[in-house]
């Protein structure tokens, strides 16, 4: 809220007609079917990746590699969409499986390192993010480049693999339904399944749960793999829902936005939906305001920065001060 407030102060200071700009910013995302669909569309990858982060946080694993897992999922999803020849529904399923498995595999390594040797996952997943970015830009400049295009972009996925648009004339695609399905799946997994219970318990208190017979190593790896699978799935869905092809540097903040989305949702899968919609609303609101008023669209990044700064600020919210230094990173779970 403070971040949003700061953003509006900036609007007042820089806009020639601040009230109108603010009005456009706030109402823009709801002003037509097109913008409503665009906002919902923007929330889809945030929901998938946010769900992934939630599982990791519940297990007290700090996955900041969702960005890389998202990209690797998009990469394998693109490959499956371009090179497999399958009938329509099956082809979509194949892309989902490929992207989910790819994200899972990419997250497996930092999970394994952490569970075997205690390697700090914050650093490893951060490194893996940059490795994914450069790997994709290498492939797009070489083997995966569309021979018909003269810039770094992959060939388009086949029409059998693309998701249908469901709210014409907006770009909203059927991925939103898949996203909602996964929200429910993750909710059931975390709240109703035995393994989900173990995962949460292990996250709440690793030592206690270890005495209770829960293998912390297994929980760490499982949390990373599930987290990566959801991020990768988000990447694949993005490709077959919106882009149709792999490009360089698309949605460069989704993995980091998702961390904040999960925190705003208090790491609850059902909370992910409104939190993701809120972030999508901010993005689209900024875009509309940038188009139709004299306000800079980059203002949104400043608003988001305010949210990022303060979302974990415990002192601000008067949270208990039980988290002393060693627990500072773990305080998220």
């Amino acid at each position, binding site marked *: 809220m403070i971040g949003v407030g700061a953003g509006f102060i900036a609007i007042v200071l820089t806009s020639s007609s601040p009230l109108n700009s603010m009005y456009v910013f706030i109402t823009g995302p709801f002003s037509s079917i097109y913008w409503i669909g665009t906002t919902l569309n923007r929330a889809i990858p945030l929901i998938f990746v946010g769900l992934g982060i939630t599982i990791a946080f519940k297990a007290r694993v700090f996955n900041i590699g969702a960005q890389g897992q998202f990209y690797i999922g998009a990469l394998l999803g693109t490959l499956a969409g371009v090179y497999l020849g399958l009938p329509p529904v099956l082809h979509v399923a194949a892309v989902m499986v490929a992207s989910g498995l790819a994200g899972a595999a990419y997250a497996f390594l930092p999970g394994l390192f952490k569970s075997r040797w205690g390697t700090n996952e914050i*650093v490893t997943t951060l490194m893996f993010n940059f490795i994914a970015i450069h790997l994709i830009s290498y492939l797009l400049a070489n083997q995966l480049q569309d021979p018909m295009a003269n810039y770094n972009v992959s060939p388009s996925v086949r029409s059998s693999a693309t998701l249908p648009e469901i709210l014409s004339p907006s770009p909203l695609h059927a991925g939103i339904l898949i996203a909602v399905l996964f929200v429910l799946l993750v909710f059931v997994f975390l709240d109703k399944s035995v393994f989900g219970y173990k995962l949460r318990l292990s996250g709440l208190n690793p030592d206690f749960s270890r005495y209770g017979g829960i293998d912390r190593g297994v929980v760490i790896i499982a949390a990373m793999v599930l987290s990566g699978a959801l991020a990768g799935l988000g990447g694949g869905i993005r490709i077959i829902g919106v882009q149709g092809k792999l490009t360089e540097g698309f949605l460069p903040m989704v993995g980091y936005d998702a961390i904040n989305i999960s925190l705003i949702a208090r790491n609850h899968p059902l909370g992910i939906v409104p939190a993701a919609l809120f972030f999508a609303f901010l993005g689209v609101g900024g875009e509309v305001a940038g188009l139709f008023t004299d306000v800079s669209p980059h203002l949104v990044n400043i608003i988001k920065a305010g949210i990022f700064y303060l979302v974990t600020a415990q*002192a601000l919210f008067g949270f208990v001060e039980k988290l002393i230094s060693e627990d500072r990173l773990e305080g998220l779970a």
Partner: protein
Amino acid sequence: MMEALNYLIPAAFHAATPILFAALGGLLTELAGYINIGLEGTLLTSAFFAVVVSTLAGNAWLGLAAGALSGVVVSFLLATVILKLRANIVIAGFATNLLASGGTVFLMSTWFGEEGVFRSPDTPVIPTVDLPLIDGVPILGEVLNHHSILVYLGWISVGLVSYLIYRTKWGLHLRVTGESEETALSTGINVERLRLQAFLLSGFFAGLGGSYLSLGLTQFFMRGMSAGRGFIALAAVYFGGFTPLGATLASLLFGFAGGVANYFQTLGLPSQLLEMTPYVLTLVAILVYSIRRSSRYGLTEEETSKSL
């Protein structure tokens, strides 16, 4: 071959300098117990203010001062949020980067009506110097001479930071604090003030690095021009084993890899895999480090929850 080296070695020094400054800054907060994700944004902010002030004031030294000062301010904001409001360092670090990427473009468009590049023909830059003693020496003279003053200042800073960390009481307290907060508190060290100081110094050095980006390496500001160097610097801190000398060698190595990548690009060879080097090497290094540590002390997750 010689020609390539004659091009590559100075290019490596130039590419390494902003990384080196940021790495020294990252090292200081790391020793205080905090991973400084915000280096990237600190570099970007200071690059912006350095070139803007240098252009408007017509004085490169004022630009440098503004760059360093803006680095300190950004770092102060980050430190306040972490130390006073007790926010999470990783997420607040990304906040710094977001604020910098949004804020610099926002100010650029508000002040100058430009969205992409701020450039002026009248921007004074930090001068280059020739060291008189080695001017005539065959290879050394060519390689070590004629760099921006900031390149030499970077090398001097390595010595300064080493001295600070290993030869002063402040450095001792810093290392104790990073090692164990309880020990530091029980010996009467003012932990919070020490950490704040580490962050301010970190911002100062990263600010010098950012100033070099826009007043040495180039003579303009471009949106997002830090281009991941803050993260490469962070990698250099880890790859260098948390010592100033290690971070320096890592910065040079990564700078060299970046130089070779650019060279490849001009030859039309794929450079993206080379750009991956800092991250792959760092990944391997921390893996080796953690395997050795866990075989010596056993698996301790509590420790891993700190910075490494």
